[in-house]
Structures are given as C-alpha cells and as structure tokens.
C-alpha cells in the first residue's frame, strides 16, 4: 500500500491548484487523474498532436509537472472507492492499488446535465462537451449539420470551438428568455470582465452568422437508427414547451446540455454528508469555509463541490491546498490566515456574478414534461418512463426502492446520467421536492473494473 501525506483526486483546475499550492509550502502529495494528461475537461490536452488548437491554457499543468520533486502525478488511474475515510482504491487498466493518505482533497469536477426526451439515445445526439472534445482535441467534426441546445454560457463556448471544424451550425437554442441580464441586481455588474467574456463569444458567433434563438428547447430527436431531424418548441418562463409552436430541422447532430452536475460519488462513499443545492448542480458535499467536508481531513474543491466554473475552482483548489498544508503542519495558523486573505477576497468578489449566473441558468420544471411513457429514462438499463412511473405509483420513493423495483441506475454509469433528472421526475410524480427523493447510492467500485485488474492488485492487499 502506498502511503502519502496528501492525495488529490482530479487533475483539473481545482486539483492542480491544490497540488501546486500545497507543494509550494513543502507538502509532498499525489495527484491522481483518469486521463493521459492533466487539465481536466476545461483544459483537456490534445490527443492528436498535429490537430489540436493552440488556444488551450496549459500553464497550470506545466506548473504541476515542474514541481516533480514534491508532486507525484498518477495518470490514467481512477479513484474507484474510499475506505475508512483515508484509503483510496485506484484502478488502472490492468491493476489496482490502495493509497493511504492523511489528507484527501476531492476535486472530481462535473459532467453535463441532460434530461431525457424522446429520441435522445440516437447516434448523433451527444453532450456539447462531447462535440467540443472531438473538435478541440482532434480536429474532428461531430457531423455535417448541427444544432446546439440547452442553457448556459457553455453552449457559446462549444459553438466557438466548432467554428474551427467543418460543420454547419444551424442554430443555438437557449432555453432562457432573451435578455435575462436586464433583470439582474446592480451588484452583479461589478464583475464586468466576466460579462465581457460572454459578450465576446456572442459577437464572434454573430460574425460567423450563427443564430442564437432564445426561449426554445428541443422536444424530440427523430430518426430510426441515426439522427435525421430534431423538433424544437418555444417555451414559457418555466420552460414548458408550447406544442403548437414546434419546428423541425433536418440535422445529423444534436448537442444538448443544461448545465452541469457535480461528481460526488467518492464523497458519498467516504461518508461525507451531502446537501441539495439545485442552483449549483444538485447534490454536493456539505462544506465549511475551509473547504472541509463533514468527514475529518477530507476536503472538496471546484465544480465537484458545486458548479461555479474555472475561476472559482482554481481559487477553491488553492484554498484547499493551503488548508491541507496547515493540517499537515507545513504552515502555521498565522501563515494560513495571511495566505488565504487574497483568495477569500477574490472568491467574495466573484460572488455576485456567480449568483446571477445561477439564477439565469437554473433548471426550470418544464423540462420534466419532455418525457412520454415510451421515453427511455435510464440509458444503461433501457428503462422507459412508464416502468419508473409505475414503480413510483407502487411506492418507490427514492433511489434504492426504485432500483430494486425497476433496475434504474443499475447499469455501468450507476445512475450518474439518469438520476439527476429522474429525481426531479420522481419528485414531481410524488408531489415532493427532489431533495426529499435523495441522491443515488453508489457502490464501490464506482466505475467498472475488470476482475483481472482487481486480481492483479499491488502487493496482495485486499
């Protein structure tokens, strides 16, 4: 079993910042990431060297790599379980190992929120992030004619990446009404630089002749074995589609996503208490201002602790790194107090902007009305809404009871993709709040591991 002072799970902005901050105060740490290169999803590094775009920001990754005297990077390894609040099981392609750590920082990031709708399992329907990875890291176009749909500024960033490959973007459908920012409190305008960044995307897309249509959502993806067209409708303020205002567009690719969901499986396995905060992605680990969860010496930072974007993730990562350094007695109380002051101040400065964005892009209940009885709601187990609805009527009220009755969440994704939306559907069906329906209940290993990899465990540990 490997022994370390500090283990950081996730090599995105939060994890990399935590590692460099802790290391700069003399802490030796291990940084684990499931990808071949550091960066996380936002700074995802190119796979095909000849094709990548050069706009990626890899300064943080370089900083981490240069600190190889103190930071050990474990690439292509997935953290699949946590035992006793300090032993983390890492799984690689052909092996597994246990790492025993004094302090654990979870910086697992987030994934996209896609509510079920008819036809969403067809080839050609994918998350915006998926299309962006194809375009950005490999220069590959996801299709010939493409529609982007959902909510939030990420759609604009993806469209901007897609301008660089050979694909016709038919339109961007943004669910929120046209100018939501006129309703914002004055405080939010203090973060003018962030609004400017958004505006730059808008003008870049406008110059490329791409239409952004507000107040519309996709209601169905159509085709037999491959996507051939998409139907979309106008929505009201709560995103309820008006079925009399449906348009159908011939496209071969649909990118759809309504924001992000924090990855909290490891926190759950470690026994961290969760709380439901729909405006930042749903279930998140309960934390104090020191980034500490309810389990001693387990911290959480970045989008995995509540979706807030790269700037906040970087700051939270640095703060978590400092607090870890204090726990390991690499710095004293006075040093921590003075070092964290500018970080806390910057986090506070970003708050109005974050709150405004949360308000604009919060998930509205109308998305629940997209499913019909025959819509697949659990992609892994191919469950249709009718089956889950009947299980709810039969008394299924939470993840566990519904899992037993209907197999929901029993596939390889363990409910990552179906449950965030399903919890809302089930809540509506049973007349309660999603927080009463509860989170999914992951089991170790949190991703499929081959028996061969388990059997080849390092050093014969169980």
């Amino acid at each position, binding site marked *: 079993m490997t022994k370390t002072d500090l283990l950081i799970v996730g090599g995105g902005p939060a994890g990399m910042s935590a590692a460099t901050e802790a290391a700069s105060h003399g802490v030796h740490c291990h940084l684990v990431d*499931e990808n071949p290169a550091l960066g996380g*999803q936002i700074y995802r590094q*190119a*796979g*095909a*060297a*000849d*094709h990548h775009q050069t706009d990626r920001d890899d300064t943080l990754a370089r900083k981490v790599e240069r600190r190889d005297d103190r930071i050990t990077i474990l690439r292509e390894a997935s953290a699949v379980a946590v035992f006793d609040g300090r032993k983390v099981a890492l799984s690689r392609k052909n092996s597994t190992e246990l790492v025993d750590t004094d302090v654990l920082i979870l910086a697992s990031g987030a*994934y*996209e929120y896609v509510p079920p709708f008819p036809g969403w*399992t*067809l*080839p*050609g*329907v*994918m*998350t915006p*992030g*998926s*299309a*962006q*990875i*194809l375009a950005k890291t*490999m220069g*590959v*176009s*996801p*299709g010939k004619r493409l529609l982007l749909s959902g909510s939030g500024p990420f759609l604009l960033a993806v469209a901007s990446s897609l301008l660089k490959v050979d694909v016709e973007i038919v339109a961007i459908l943004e669910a929120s009404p046209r100018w939501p920012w006129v309703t914002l409190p004055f405080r939010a305008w203090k973060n003018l630089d962030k609004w400017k960044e958004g505006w730059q995307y808008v003008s870049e897309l406008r110059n490329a002749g791409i239409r952004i249509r507000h107040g519309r959502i996709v209601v169905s993806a159509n085709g037999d*074995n*491959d996507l051939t067209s998409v139907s979309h409708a106008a929505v009201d303020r709560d995103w309820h589609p008006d079925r009399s205002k449906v348009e159908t567009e011939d496209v071969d690719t649909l990118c759809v996503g309504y924001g992000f969901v924090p*990855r909290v499986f490891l926190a759950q396995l470690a026994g961290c208490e969760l709380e439901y905060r729909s405006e930042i992605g749903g279930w998140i680990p309960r934390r104090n201002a020191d980034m500490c969860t309810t389990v001693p010496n387990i911290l959480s930072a970045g989008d995995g602790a509540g979706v807030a974007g790269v700037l906040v993730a970087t700051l939270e990562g640095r703060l978590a790194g400092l607090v870890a350094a204090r726990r390991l007695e690499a710095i004293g109380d006075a040093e921590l107090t003075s070092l964290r002051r500018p970080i806390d101040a910057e986090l506070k400065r970003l708050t109005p902007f974050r709150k405004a964005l949360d308000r604009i892009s919060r998930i509205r209940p109308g998305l629940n009305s997209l499913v019909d009885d025959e819509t697949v709601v659990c*992609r*892994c*187990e*191919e469950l249709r809404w009718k089956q889950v609805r009947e299980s709810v009527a039969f008394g299924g009220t939470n993840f566990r009871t519904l899992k037993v009755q209907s197999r929901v969440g029993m*596939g*390889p*994704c363990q409910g*990552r*993709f179906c449950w965030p939306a399903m919890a809302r559907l089930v809540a509506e069906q049973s007349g309660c709040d999603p927080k009463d329906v509860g989170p999914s209940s992951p089991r170790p290993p949190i*991703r*499929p591991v081959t028996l061969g990899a388990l059997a080849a465990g390092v050093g014969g540990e169980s």
Partner: protein
Amino acid sequence: MDVEFTLNGQSFRCPTGCTVAAALFLLGRRTMRLSARDGTARSLFCGMGICYDCVMRIDGQSNVRACQTVVQPGMKVEVQQGEGELGDDA
C-alpha cells in the same frame, strides 16, 4: 492518415492520436453498439468516459469505451452486440 485499423473486419486509416470514437466519426460510421434489451443503435454520448454508452468490442475485449481508447496500429474494432462476450483471453 497514419494508423491502420479494422472496423468489423474492414480496413480503414485514421490520423495518429485519434480515439476510436473520433475515427468512427471521421468515417461517418458512428454506431458503436447495439443495446442489450432493445437492440437499438448507440454511439458517443458524454465523450468523457463516464456514461459507457460508446462501449465497443476492441481487440477481442467487450465493453471498452471508444471515447477513451486511442486507435493503435492494427487495432480490431467491432460494433458490440448487446452485453458483449467474454474476451478472447478469458
């Protein structure tokens, strides 16, 4: 175009460093598996390795994620049927 691989026994080439998923999109053949219960076509969905919708049979092993696997010279890629079968080495 530098790497040769096979898709369902037929030879193709793709740029070095492409994932299996990207290579299939370049070919315009994006069905990666047929689902176990309904036999419906599935393809790339989340693109980051967590949804397991794009799993294929690669070099004789089933349930390998096309979005996380870089094409290697001579790689045998097959559309996965249902749950897949035990690997050749099992």
